């Protein structure tokens, strides 16, 4: 770990200002990902601005009939919230499918969205990685890539986004609210929040330097059956090979997003329209143009079968 300076911010704009003022500065909240990466010098911030005193830890109703989730609401509290469990079940299910109880107690809503990839080559500083060290190359391409992306990847990066929560947020059409050093606020649709790797895999979100997430809002509830199916080799405490977040309406229409397949939660309106025709029709469209590796080609049939499982779950528990 490289030596760094540290301060504790007390209001969001001041926090944004503190980070914007110092190149190489970072926000820290729960630290469940950032600290691990700092210990192995994958992350080397020169300055940390601790945001945990910003009082962004409330879940409140919005005028539009949805919920505003403070950036610092822990994963545990968010998953357990009665309104979330009642109206946004897919979100609770996704969150409790991730990490462990201890980590969810520390991890925050904003921090969860900002997790870095779990690509093993990203974690090993001896290996080339365009995400860690732009221009150094991608060791994962042609390497061990069973966990990695099958779609939306580039010849610079085939990493996936590891979050479960973000997949549910995507299917719920959440919005990320931010503030910057000038005090300007912005609402970024979750669809636009995470970027594809392209030629700049080190730039992972739409956030500008120093821009701070203050909340994630959910639109008013959409009803339907909420399902989160996560596939992994062991029963708990593992990242998804493939996950499916789905909200299915009684008439068979609905929404679907995939996790574990791309650099961001993967969703497509045209594919979703195929839901009444079954899982195969959906994934055929949703994953059209996929470029899997030898190691992870199984994710394509797995995605279809996992969606089928989600749809069957809805049918059998309806």
């Amino acid at each position: 770990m490289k030596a760094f300076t540290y301060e504790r911010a007390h209001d969001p704009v001041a926090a944004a200002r503190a980070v914007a003022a110092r190149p190489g500065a970072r926000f820290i909240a729960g630290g469940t990902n950032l600290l691990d990466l700092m210990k192995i010098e994958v992350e080397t911030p020169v300055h940390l601005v601790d945001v945990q005193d910003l009082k962004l830890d409330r879940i409140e109703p919005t005028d539009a009939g949805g919920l505003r989730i403070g950036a610092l609401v822990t994963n545990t509290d968010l998953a357990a919230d009665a309104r979330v469990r009642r109206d946004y079940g897919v979100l609770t299910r996704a969150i409790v499918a991730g990490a462990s109880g201890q980590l969810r107690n520390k991890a925050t809503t904003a921090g969860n969205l900002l997790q870095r990839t779990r690509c093993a080559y990203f974690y090993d500083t001896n290996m080339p990685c365009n995400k860690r060290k732009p221009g150094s190359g991608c060791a994962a391409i042609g390497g061990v890539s069973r966990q990695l992306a099958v779609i939306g990847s580039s010849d610079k990066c085939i990493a996936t986004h590891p979050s479960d929560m973000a997949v549910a947020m995507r299917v719920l059409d959440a919005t990320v609210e931010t503030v910057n050093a000038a005090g300007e606020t912005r609402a970024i649709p979750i669809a636009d929040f995470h970027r594809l790797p392209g030629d700049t895999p080190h730039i992972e979100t739409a956030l500008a330097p120093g821009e701070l997430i203050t909340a994630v809002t959910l639109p008013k509830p959409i009803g339907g059956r909420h399902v989160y199916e996560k596939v992994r080799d062991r029963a708990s405490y593992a990242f998804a090979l493939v996950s499916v977040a789905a909200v299915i309406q009684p008439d068979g229409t609905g929404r679907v997003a995939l996790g574990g397949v791309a650099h961001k939660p993967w969703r497509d309106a045209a594919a979703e329209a195929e839901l009444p025709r079954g899982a195969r029709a959906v994934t055929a469209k949703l994953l059209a143009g996929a470029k899997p590796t030898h190691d992870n080609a199984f994710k394509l049939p797995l995605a279809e079968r996992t969606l089928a499982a989600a749809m069957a779950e809805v049918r059998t528990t309806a």
Partner: protein
Amino acid sequence: MKFETPAGDNPIDRMTVVGRAHARIDGPLKTTGTAPYAYEHHREIADPAYGYVVGAAIGKGRISAIDLTQAKAAPGVIAIVTADNAGKLGKGKFNTVKLLGGPEIDHYHQAVAIVVAETFEQARAAAALVRLDYARAEGRFDLDTALKTAPLAGGSSDEGSGSPGVDRVGQFEQAFAAAPVKLDAHYSTPDQSHAMMEPFASIAAWRGDELTVWTSNQMIAWGHGDLARTLGIPKEKIRFLSPYVGGGFGGKLFLRTDAVLAALGARAAGRPVKVALQRPLIPNNTTHRPATRQHIRIGATKDGTITAIAHDSGSGDQPGGEPETAVNQTKLLYAGANRRISMHLAVLDLPEGNAMRAPGEAPGMMALEIAIDEMAEKLGMDPIAFRIKNDTQVDPEKPERRFSERQLVRCLEDGAKRFGWSRRNPKPAQVRDGRWLVGMGVAAAFRNHINMASGARVRLGQGGVVTVETDMTDIGTGSYTIIAQTAAEMMGVPVDAVVVKLGDSRFPVSAGSGGQFGAANATAGVYAACVKLREAVAQRLGFNSADTVFEGGKVRSGNRSTDLAQAANAGELVAEDKIEFGKLGDTYQLSTFGAHFVEVGVDAFTGVTRVRRMLAVCAAGRILNPQTARSQVIGAMTMGVGGALMEELAVDTRFGFFVNHDLAGYEVPVHADIPHQEVVFLDEADDKANPMKAKGVGELGLCGVGAAVANAVYNATGVRVRDYPITLDKHLERLPALV
């Protein structure tokens, strides 16, 4: 005490303490955090400096330049040791590869430097400033490629030495060709990491030319000797201690880099240094279980009699390394007149392969016991009936050698009843429970018992306290407890009147912990020392030692009786002895047996396998403590589930390293993976093994589990996977159609 003839009646047979369930006597220390592990000897070493290990960044090649300028100037740095300034170092007898590399690099993450600083954080930060330039060389990193030209390995005999390259009985080729029913199949097992909880860790402190090392090691004498050899100093100058070990699984059988670099770092820093090998370094820096490629051929008559059996295993290792002896169990497990056993060993530049729990046996049984299941299906036989049909009570290679005890058939039959095997549908892919395809599998468990000389010293002190000293280790297995039970039984005192001191090179050399030989041999050594102490007690009390009875804290002879404590009134009595073995282990085949039963569910949609219940029935000699023995077996069963379903060190054959080198990437089972487990021990007392009439269970519990899982998966799905681990991608698209 030399053990040369079968054990007669002895005080252990009373089984008033030995053979009874007893919670681990070191348990309260561990649950309260007061058992000092290697990194935690705060009382002895109050102000250590901290060492951080730098691992090589390449798989093969050499260091072309080292620049320590920045690292040396970093805050808190006291010393940096590399091969350039370490002085002349030897290599341990048990190490294949040097523990401090440079300039030549033998494998990825081979240690190349230790940075010593005032704090751990300073050492870690400075370690990242060590500037190393490398010249990469071409490495041999792909096992399949290397095996194409790999020679036969010598020695498929027990413990791998010196026998011919191919072991033959009869005429395998002709018999196999003529067999009406045959199987010819290939199986593979991946590289695996021990993934023990406690990392490799050591504290080293010099006083003049004398060195004390607190470490985490399974075999004190091996580590002690190899540290002396490596440092080039007499071993009398080194005290090597390992009183508590947080798991080893074979990874800590040998001296490793943490101990060597702590010693070198402490010498350079002029003060004690502690080192814990950082987790991401462990899989590539230390040893692992080598991957295997196995080929099994079995021929049988239509009634299910095996007439021909051949097993070849290929594995790889560093130059001078050993094969993974995956074929050994096939030599002894089933009858068959014509046999062919061989191994191939490729040279690889991946990290050093070496022993991991049930070395050879675990991957060998993972393959063989699938093959037996496949063969039974071809024959239309129940896999239990097929195994029973081909049971043998003698060594098939040397029929004059009988098994001392072999209750495999009873294990299978008893287990079948308990598990409800009769409810298994022999036709695969027939049983559904909601979205789960349900199947049952069985496999034999089989692991040989190894005799090892083992010594102990026993003291009878004031108040009748019995103190046992031996360099035996407790790696979480219960050694403290069974040794206390043994001494208590022998001296006729309760367990809490016994103090057990382990893991110190100043104590008599024991068997150590490995190869499931620890419990039986170490307690036999304590038995031998206690026999001597009993004689000393009798002599001091003026009793006739031949008929003296030790019981209830008293010593009785004829009509005389006195408190045991009285014997120490005139001063402590000390006795030391060791158990040594004659030829009984050659005359008889000493082995342990069992049967593993597993029920799995395979998700019909995703192909994910989850174990639903497990049973092991074991026959392994006298069970010294059913509670700690059960813990050993359920732990091994858990490891077997990991091996069957998830554990794999993924090799990058371009860069030459194990990619998933932390506990996020190398998945081992979590609680949610392990459902109901049941363990049954059959009554057995093996008088050919040792005076304890005990053998071991720690590895038996792992042998065969993986195949039982695999066979259950097949029974659930109808898709045979012969390549471990059985992850969903290996059968997903061949699963029964979704309805």
